[in-house]
């Protein structure tokens, strides 16, 4: 078991390999579909003019993301009305939806890792090699369990605009359990399982009914 503190340096990232169990501690930020689209359009490809508090939010999130970790998660949060936020349920969401954006987001913000579930594709794997960064897989659906590793909610961005699941929540976690499934050396557990299961499928399709 590797115990890793956020922010993470490149040397630590290079020491990780697909299959390694890791526990993460420190400050991370959540971000999923709306956030990735917003980041790419407004700050990476600049196809959309910054609006409202976009530039101010950008400056603030940069410091969390630099050598940091982005968590694909749309949490259940209590205390919305009183702003006394507490993470009630916070498992990972399916990451593959961010495949068109992830590698560019990693490079732009100097991310060292993303956490999600289900794995990602070839473009993100190349992003892991180039940045360097890794993909951490958390256990999908284990939302109450994972929420208990969240010690504190430090803040939230774009809550009104994106809604609770899609907002950027800044959280402090302790011993957040994950498995590295895509590493900075170009290895992906997901690609291996996809390939081996496809071979079995071909055999099964050839079997008589």
């Amino acid at each position, binding site marked *: 078991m590797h115990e890793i503190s956020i922010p993470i340096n490149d040397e630590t990232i290079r020491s990780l390999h697909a299959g390694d169990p890791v526990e993460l501690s420190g400050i991370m930020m959540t971000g999923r579909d709306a956030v990735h689209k917003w980041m790419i359009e407004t700050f990476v490809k600049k196809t959309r003019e910054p609006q409202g508090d976009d530039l101010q939010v950008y400056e603030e999130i940069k410091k969390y993301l630099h050598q940091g970790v982005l968590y694909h998660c749309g949490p*259940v*949060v209590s205390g919305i009305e009183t702003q006394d936020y507490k993470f009630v*349920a916070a498992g990972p*969401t399916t990451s*593959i939806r961010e495949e068109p954006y992830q590698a560019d987001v990693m490079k732009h913000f100097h991310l060292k890792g993303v956490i999600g*579930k289900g794995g990602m594709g070839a473009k993100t794997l190349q992003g892991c090699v180039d940045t360097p960064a890794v993909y951490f897989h958390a256990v999908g659906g*284990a939302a109450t*369990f994972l929420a208990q590793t969240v010690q504190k909610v430090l803040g939230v961005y774009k809550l009104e605009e994106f809604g609770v699941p899609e907002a950027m929540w800044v959280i402090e976690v302790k011993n957040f359990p994950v498995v590295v499934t895509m590493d900075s050396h170009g290895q992906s557990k997901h690609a291996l399982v996809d390939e081996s*299961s496809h071979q079995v499928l071909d055999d099964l399709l050839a079997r008589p009914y």
Partner: protein
Amino acid sequence: MPDLTSEILELIRRTSSSLPRDVEDRLRVAIEKEEPGSAARGALETILKNIELSRANSTPICQDTGTPIFYVHYPEGTSTRKLREQIKAALAEATKRSYMRPNAVDAIYDKNTGNNLGGDDFPSIHFEEVDADQPLVIELMLKGGGCENVGAQYSLPDNKLGAGRDLAGVRKVVLDAVQKAQGKGCAPGILGVSIGGDRGSSYIKSKEVLFSKMGTRNEDPKLAALEERLTQEANEMGIGPMGFGGQTTVLDTKITGLHRLPASYFVSVSYMCWAYRRRRMTVRGATVEYD
């Protein structure tokens, strides 16, 4: 007619936070098949801890509290209009209490309504009338988006898979759907399969079959045999919990048949994640039972 809002709220709390025992039992069998120290076993250990914690704390098993799908079997003479209002009120309250995540997003304007209510179709409520002397039964299923996204519909024949318009063809496309899903639907999953119908009725039916208990087999021996075979063959693919590689990819398969047009032969696969949240309440006079 009594106001059942608080009883329906309790149904939602139980469904979101307490996994049915028959599902949990299957997961406890599955963990014994995985190698000690493997990522697959680690995932199942975390899943089992999470099931206990969420039940004890009345917190959601999964943060994606899903599409709320209600099936209401109401005795003749009951007001479905009032029941609909009570279900909506209970859902808004459940969201306030964090049993549910605000999950209804306007698809055109990208705005989350904040209370799980949106238009006429969110939540999804199906009404079915029963005789006046029967109890009122409300079933609830919460189906998350991750597993919903890996559902698939095939129009047979499918040349690429060599799947014709018969059960042999059905077997092929279901196995293909499992391989494509990998771990993205939060494996180990449960398959709801519907054969026939039109595109709409076929998908609806593939979810309806998921209301039955684990291990419930179709009465038709041919379909029962295919259910067993598909579960076993899906597991041969070795995708495993979370797609980490392992012995258990599918916990159970449920198949049903519909009538179809001569021109159409649809096979719909609804993939249910391991967080297979379904509960039922039965109202007889002043007594409410939950299971």
